[in-house]
């Protein structure tokens, strides 16, 4: 049981059926404090579904998900929201909230939004959207909106290490960002992890995952094909098996992690 408590998130034999179709099966997964795990796989591999199962948005057909030592279903929603923030792929905001109001919503589970203006502005500084604070979200570009939402989930779990469990689950948080902001967002994620928070990030870019994540989980057709450190997982054979491409892996001169290139 001790091992259970030490892991922030632990999933065992999670399977999910939608009607007769089995979308996800046999997911065994753990996420520990201070760890940043990237979930990779081709389109339709079930990355978002796995994330939804692990965060409780979907209920597994079978299997269990335990968060902070307690099955997900036993958490009071508000208590869970204070410890864990989830950033789904974005839908549009129908009303003209200002960017800052959106970030402030991140504090609603704590009920202290009024007292957290400093934290809100700092988070917006981190994700480089401070200058957008008073703008209506309807006028923001996709990338700007994504940075605003990233700031929102950051303030939800707090910017600094606290006594309690902290966990961030991000579904393609950098899909609309430019090169510099992609790295910026992942550096923030890394920083949060180094404070002891647990991070699960769905990504598409193998090289960014290799550079920033501690572990990579490769998903294909709803199953985990491989999981391990970037250098264990990112090899020609596995990439070929999962993505159906011929890849060459070299060493990234910047950080020493594997770097993947495709044979033309």
């Amino acid at each position, binding site marked *: 049981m001790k091992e259970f408590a030490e892991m922030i998130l632990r999933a065992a034999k999670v399977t999910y059926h939608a009607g007769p179709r089995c979308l996800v099966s046999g997911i065994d997964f753990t996420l520990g404090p201070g760890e940043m795990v990237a979930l990779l796989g081709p389109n339709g591999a079930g990355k978002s579904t796995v994330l939804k199962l692990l*965060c409780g*948005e979907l209920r597994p057909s079978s299997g269990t998900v335990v968060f902070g030592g307690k099955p997900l279903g036993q958490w009071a*929603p*508000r*208590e*869970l*929201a*204070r410890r*864990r*923030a*989830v950033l*789904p792929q974005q*839908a549009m*905001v*129908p*009303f*003209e*909230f*200002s*960017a800052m*109001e*959106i970030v402030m*919503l*991140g504090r*609603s*589970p704590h009920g202290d939004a009024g007292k957290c203006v400093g934290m809100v502005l700092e988070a917006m500084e981190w994700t480089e959207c401070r200058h957008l604070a*008073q*703008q*209506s979200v*309807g*006028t923001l570009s996709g990338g700007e909106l994504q940075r605003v939402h990233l700031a929102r989930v950051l303030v*939800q779990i707090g910017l600094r290490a606290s006594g309690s469990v902290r966990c961030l689950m991000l579904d393609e948080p950098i899909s609309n960002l430019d090169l510099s902001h992609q790295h910026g967002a992942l550096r923030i994620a890394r920083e949060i992890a180094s404070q002891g928070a647990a991070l699960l990030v769905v990504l598409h870019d193998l090289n960014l995952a290799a550079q920033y994540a501690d572990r990579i989980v490769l998903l294909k057709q709803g199953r985990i094909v491989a999981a391990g450190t970037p250098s264990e997982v990112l090899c020609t054979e596995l990439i070929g098996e999962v993505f159906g491409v011929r890849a060459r892996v070299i060493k990234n001169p910047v950080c020493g992690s594997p770097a993947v290139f495709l044979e033309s």
Partner: protein
Amino acid sequence: MESPGRMRASSMKRGRGLFLLGLAAALACLSMVALCVGAVKIPPREILEALTGRALDAKLETVVWHLRVPRVLLGIMVGAALSVAGALMQGLFRNPLADPGLIGISSGAALGAVFVITLGGVVLPEAPLLSDMRLLPVSAFVGALIVALIVQRLAATSGYTSVATVLLVGIAVNSLATAVIGLSTFLATDTQMRALSFWMLGSLGAADWKMIGIAAPFCLGLTAVAPLFAPALNAFALGEAEAGHLGYSIERTKKLLIVVTAAGVGACVAFTGLIGFVGLVVPHLVRLWIGPDHRWLVPGSVLLGGILLTLADTIARTVVAPAELPIGILTAAFGGPFFLLLLLRARRRALWG
């Protein structure tokens, strides 16, 4: 990059408290005006005397206490309830075009009410239960609730609301309601028919203290609990799943919202008929002034809804005096074009989906 439109959010936020105070003051003044004007013009001083029981003229006191005061109170109550219902439905369906009338909730309430008014009288003329006024809001509530649940079931699948579906369900329910109401006018006596068609157009003319007493728990109940939903509705704007991740119980919130809205709208429709577009126009105007934050939007809608309906009713009973214009005609005449304007705006923002 920095066009004035992009910076509007900040200017909207300033002076929210002042805005609400202004609305409250306007509502108070307008209520006074509404008490003064009518078939008999009564000066404000005499109104105050009548209200404080110091009136010299007993007839005048009767006019004020038993005709004008209930009517103004009913107008404020109904305006507030319909506007708040609109604000709640717009937040719930994540769409600024939702309105109890347009999405069929009012028609559902009308169905329930008509059922009691005429069919009850025709089929079971001697049934004492059906002739009881207290049954009206209950049956209207049931009708409104059924429609609201259907709309929610059909439109809000997988955390994503289709506006087109919401409005189409509204069309379907509205035509069904028209059919049933048509059938009951066919069965009704001449007097019933006249009463029904006036009721369909909406009127505060029947206001009395008994009606206020029965409608108040429903309307005031909706108005009183609506602010409790404000934080959840702010989170709903991000999406249903996101609201869940922010710690709100989505299913429970949705169900409660629909029940209280149906109760409020049901009571309004039961006693004042179909007064359309108030729930659409009022929250929109409030948002233009103080932004979309529901913690301010809800009280703003309460006040502005009271103001607009009192104003509309005052116009309705003075413009063709001594006759009265059904108030629903007025709100539709102003609300219809307003809705078209919103549709055009929404299309530009690609809200259809």
